[in-house]
């Protein structure tokens, strides 16, 4: 008796199952058609941040002097690829700085951050929160000049810390957004980790080159 009941439920659900398969197919088609374009939009947005995050006297032509750098890092034993963008000076050789792409878990979901650093990753020149869906009115304030501006000129020798009060002028602390400490800490962790990884990469190419890298 229960077998026929089970079969009956499946039969009754045939419409739901058919719709699910059809919609799945339709969405796959939409994804195939639009994904390249969406990736291009994201890339343009990333590139448009470079002049803001990597300080350069000649902002106008900076976009033409950007090289994508792909390197691997060890994340818990797994080799993972990372992307950074190298901004070159007019002569096409001297490095002005880099823009790193990093992501991590926020309070709600993944947060993507662009981080500008100087040529030796000793100082942060700016950050931009590229993607987030934190709580509107609270966590989503991480995407604001007020919060992002706190990272400018922070030194990377030590980790940046999040505190709840106004930080002293030359400390390496930033102030958390009121009632959004988790989102604030998440961004801070993402920045610290990304800079560490990138510094390791810079050290490794130093070792490979043997010679000192020009500033």
């Amino acid at each position, binding site marked *: 008796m229960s077998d026929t009941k089970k079969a009956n439920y499946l039969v*009754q659900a045939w419409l*739901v199952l058919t*719709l699910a398969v059809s919609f799945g197919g*339709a969405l796959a088609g*939409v994804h195939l058609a639009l994904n390249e374009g*969406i990736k291009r*939009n*994201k890339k343009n947005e990333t590139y448009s941040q470079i002049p803001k995050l990597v300080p350069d006297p000649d902002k106008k032509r900076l976009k033409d002097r950007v090289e994508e750098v792909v390197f691997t890092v060890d994340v818990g034993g797994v080799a993972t690829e990372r992307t950074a963008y190298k901004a070159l000076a007019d002569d096409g050789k001297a490095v002005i700085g880099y823009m790193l792409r990093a992501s991590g878990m926020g309070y709600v979901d993944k947060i993507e951050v662009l981080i500008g650093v100087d040529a030796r990753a000793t100082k942060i020149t700016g950050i931009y929160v590229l993607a987030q869906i934190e709580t*509107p*009115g609270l966590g989503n304030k991480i995407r604001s000049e007020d919060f992002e501006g706190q990272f400018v000129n922070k030194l990377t020798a030590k980790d940046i810390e999040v505190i709840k009060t106004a930080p002293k002028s030359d400390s390496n602390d930033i102030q958390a957004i009121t009632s959004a400490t988790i989102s604030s800490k998440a961004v801070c962790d993402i920045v610290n980790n990304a800079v560490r990884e990138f510094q390791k990469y810079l050290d490794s190419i130093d070792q490979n080159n043997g010679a000192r890298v020009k500033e």
Partner: protein
Amino acid sequence: MPSDGPTAGERFVRGLIPENPVYRQLLGMCPTLAVTGGMKTAMTMAGAVAFVLICANVLTSLIRNLLKPHLRILVFTLTIAAFVTIADRVLAYAMYDMSKELGPYIPLIIVNCVIICRCEVCASKQSVLVAASDAVGQSIGFALALASVASLREILGAGTFFGLQVMPSAWPNWGIMVMPPGAFLTLGLLLGLANWIGAIREKKSGTSA
């Protein structure tokens, strides 16, 4: 069949004002509060909702004879979710900046009560033509509701309309209007106004009858 319900024309006209989704049915108030800080975001939301509503209504109407009563809500939600995902991807492709500004509110169209209500009340019971014109009428009504709140909030709160400066530069922008409290205040006052106008019209048609 005389007892089929309102005609297509009636459904369309009702959706505009008499059965306005926001002012009369009090549905879909979440986007009405959230994305009406400016006309651009409000109208983009209205467009996305219109697309989903029309597609969902048409599809639901086409399969209305296949729906089982105890699985119909599931089917509605499945249909709506599929179309919202399509709308979200198209928006990310064609209007990337707007899609970032609207953020999580586009996926939240899935739980917008206007759409599932129209599926339940109209599309699952009437023909495709009636369902489609119901969807168009309700979409325009929703857009009108969003526009009424958004224009007040943008003009008073930012001095602009669709991003163009309309208030003189001496106008002190009422910052509260572009923040959530301003949304609640604006919607509440406009709802009160709509109810008041409705009451006056009822009195008029009552005495003239």
